[in-house]
């Protein structure tokens, strides 16, 4: 089953998704900024439709190592939430959080736990903002963390989504910090039922 074209061409829904991306991302960045004591900004928030099979290839070099935190939303609104950082960004985030000087290193167990918590806080802030905005309950699952190839991580996310649909609505947010152009990426992947529910809510507003 693919996404109905009525959904892809529904201007109210698309505007609503933009709004969700903005509100969710704003809350997530505020939470993150508070956590690490630095100002994190939203660079771009966008949404697009992508087939589950192609998702692992469209976000950049498939073999680059990334640090990813994944969790799922439960409740009336279901979906996946993936937060991705480069290894260096992840370790520097942890160092900022623990107020210590940044050292270039491989992620150790402490770093993994810390980044898991960062993901948890960001994603929970995002989801609760979206839930409040739309009036649809969304409860985050416990987070999982993985350090691996971008392709392998996205493939897992695709396989999870595949049970629901062959196409995904991706709400993507990029974060920036200071001068660096790249900081992190947050993907919100509502399932088909949730998209339909959101469309109804937006129309009722």
């Amino acid at each position: 089953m693919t996404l109905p074209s009525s959904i892809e061409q529904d201007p109210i829904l698309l505007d609503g998704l933009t709004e969700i991306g903005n509100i969710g991302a704003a809350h997530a960045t505020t939470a993150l900024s508070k956590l690490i004591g630095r100002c994190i900004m939203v660079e771009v928030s966008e949404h697009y439709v992508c087939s589950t099979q192609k998702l692992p290839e469209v976000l950049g070099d498939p073999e680059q190592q990334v640090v990813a935190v994944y969790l799922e939303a439960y409740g009336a609104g279901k979906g996946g939430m993936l937060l991705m950082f480069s290894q260096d960004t992840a370790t520097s985030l942890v160092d900022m959080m623990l107020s210590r000087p940044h050292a270039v290193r491989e992620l150790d167990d402490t770093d993994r736990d810390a980044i898991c918590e960062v993901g948890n806080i960001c994603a929970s802030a995002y989801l609760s903002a979206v839930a409040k905005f739309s009036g649809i309950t969304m409860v985050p699952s416990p987070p999982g963390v993985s350090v691996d190839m971008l392709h392998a991580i996205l493939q897992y996310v695709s396989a999870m989504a595949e049970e629901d649909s062959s196409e995904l609505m991706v709400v993507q947010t990029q974060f920036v910090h200071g001068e660096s152009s790249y900081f992190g990426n947050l993907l919100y992947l509502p399932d088909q039922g949730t998209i339909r529910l959101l469309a109804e809510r937006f129309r009722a507003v």
Partner: protein
Amino acid sequence: MRVMDDRMTRDDVAAPPHTLGSLPHSPRRIDEACIVGVGEYQTLDIPGQLVCIGLGSCVGIAIFDPQVQIGGLAHAMLPRYEEGRDKVNAAKYADSSIMLMVDELVEMGAERGRLRAKIAGGAQMFSFMSSDTLNIGQRNSEAARATLKAERIRLLGEDIGGTRGRTVTFSTADGSYRVQMGNDVFEI
């Protein structure tokens, strides 16, 4: 012609942007290797290489006839066709992709009785409680194994499970199956 080796990144060997842009669908040709995309399979009846980049919970199933150098590689993302939602693209599933690929290999001139297989992948990328309680990686590799057994294709080697992603390269020339996990490279 440039040959890909370990020191070169794929960027080094990538074709100019305009040619990549005109070939949006798999297989993308990266030098001599054919990239097998997620939920697809590729077969070759000449000596050559087939690659699955970044296998996470998916399994890379190589089936070949060593005598005639005919072989294929499947990149399956879900375990069973019967349990799946999508009935259009059967190459997505471990069991049906094996059957499709075997039929195609036999049509190309391979002998069914001589077919051998090697599999890798099926990692558990994230370990936590989620809707993935049954571990999709494990289910994928079990489905692949069971199907190979049912089809009476001998499994010569496997590297499955774990928590890390793999990039695999299968060569139809000699049936070698190279697995790369981070900095570790080995053959099965």
